[in-house]
């Protein structure tokens, strides 16, 4: 049994190594400064991906800007203010259900509400708003965990010194939970970077440089999808995949380091 399970573990970890090796082998040669900072030409067959990087940054940044306050506020309410009961149980069940919704469904919703009804069109704003909803469960869960790990004595100490509840939360509890909250933000960032289906339906796939929140934009993930399925340039598709995976893994590594730091007493 030991041999079989070990062979399995070698295979599975080999998959990751093989995948990364493949992306590096086929894509690294194309990842140059000109590629990262150049404008695309001929629908992405040549030239660089600067507008794609800018669109990705704006779309993901906008999503975090929306999801963090809403998610952290929700977590603060559930952990610090709400009394246990039906309301809290109901809200937990609903945010858990939100976590299970497939990304294409978020895309449909964002298309229906933001793109059509609110008239934002295929735009960074529509994409960010849609993505923010997808990220909410991650932000809520990690923030709740971070808040739950703050020792009660800190809250009691602050109260004993005459702080109001909100002062205690703002000055003491949040400070102590900061690394946990940040971890949640970084995990959400990693997920947002790779999201494709929902973004394709709400932000479109325009390859131009975005000029306003209502500009359409093409993220790295969508760019990779289009390069690959339309057979435009395999080399540039590998290069885009490499940049995307490197970004996601770097972000996840940062989250892991933050988590490890947060666990140290």
């Amino acid at each position, binding site marked *: 049994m030991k041999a079989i399970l*070990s062979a399995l*573990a070698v295979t599975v970890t080999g998959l990751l190594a093989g995948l990364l090796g493949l992306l590096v082998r086929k894509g690294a040669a194309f990842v140059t400064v000109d590629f990262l900072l150049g404008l695309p030409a001929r629908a992405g067959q040549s030239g660089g991906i600067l507008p794609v990087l800018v669109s990705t940054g704006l779309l993901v940044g906008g999503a975090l800007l929306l999801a963090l306050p*809403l998610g952290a506020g*929700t977590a603060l309410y559930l952990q610090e203010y709400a009394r246990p009961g039906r309301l809290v149980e109901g809200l937990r069940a*609903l945010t858990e259900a939100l976590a299970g919704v497939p990304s294409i469904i978020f895309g449909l919703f964002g298309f229906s509400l933001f793109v059509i009804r609110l008239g934002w069109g295929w735009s960074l704003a529509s994409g960010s708003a849609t993505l923010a909803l997808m990220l909410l469960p991650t932000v809520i869960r990690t923030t709740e965990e971070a808040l739950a790990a703050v020792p009660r004595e800190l809250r009691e100490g602050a109260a004993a010194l005459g702080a109001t509840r*909100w002062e205690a939360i703002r000055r003491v509890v949040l400070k102590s939970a900061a690394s946990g909250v940040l971890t949640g933000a970084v995990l959400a960032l990693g997920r947002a970077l*790779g999201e494709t289906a929902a973004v394709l339906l709400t932000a479109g796939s325009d390859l131009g440089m975005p000029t306003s929140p209502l500009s359409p934009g093409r993220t790295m993930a969508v760019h990779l999808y289009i390069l*690959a399925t339309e057979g435009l340039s395999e080399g540039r598709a590998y290069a885009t995949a490499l940049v995307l995976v490197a970004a996601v893994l770097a972000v996840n590594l940062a989250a*892991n380091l933050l988590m490890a730091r947060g666990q140290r007493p």
Partner: protein
Amino acid sequence: MQSVLQACALAAGAAVLLIAAFVVAEGRPALGAVFGPVWDPEAGAFGVLPMLAGSLAVTAGALALAVPAGIGMALFLTEVAPPALGTAVRPLLQALAGVPSVVYGFVGLTLLVPAIRRGLGGPGFSALAGALVLAVMVLPTIAAVGEDALRALPPTFREGALALGATPWQAVRRVLLPAARSGLVTAVVLGLGRALGETMAVLMVTGNVAAAPRSPLDPVRTLTGNIAMEMGYAVGQHRAALFATGALLLALVMLVNAAARRASR
């Protein structure tokens, strides 16, 4: 401050209800038509039963591979690997889970599809390709949740079995796996939910022919793929049918997730 935070929490809780309401409302005009055997938008036929069959076939194939491999990985981490090796392997599994689905789809498209075409015949774009790519994607989920389930068992279970003269394999098969059953079922059902909802990777390798597959080498279209393929240009009843496809998918995934919650209790 409490009222602001409560408003955040209520908004976050309402999100999933709003999403479901929008998708169902937009799909309502076509809800009656989707339970038909033929999808031919130009002829006004909007039956998604072939896509339902496609989704189920690809998901079943993926689970047939990922469940034994995922639980095997969980056993490797809990029973075989020394703690130091486990600490090294776990982040690799996490990294495998973090790779964006569009990257899996891209690698599947450039390597797996041609390999299937050469080695096994058919177009290469197939239910088999979709199942293989999905298996790699859900394996980390099953391994991680399965590991938690096995770790939650008291060490006395294993020690007792070994003391009674069981071999390690007998202890695993007769004592540990049955004792961890509810957690392992949760792992499988979570993987199932993820596989059903996955869009991009499957879309890129299954060929997307809207007919029920007769063999694993036939191309298939999944419910998610149906939405992503045609949403860009659908109008009127066609668009409503895509939202109805989404409503069906959402109902399926919600049922599966409710089952997972029940199993974990």
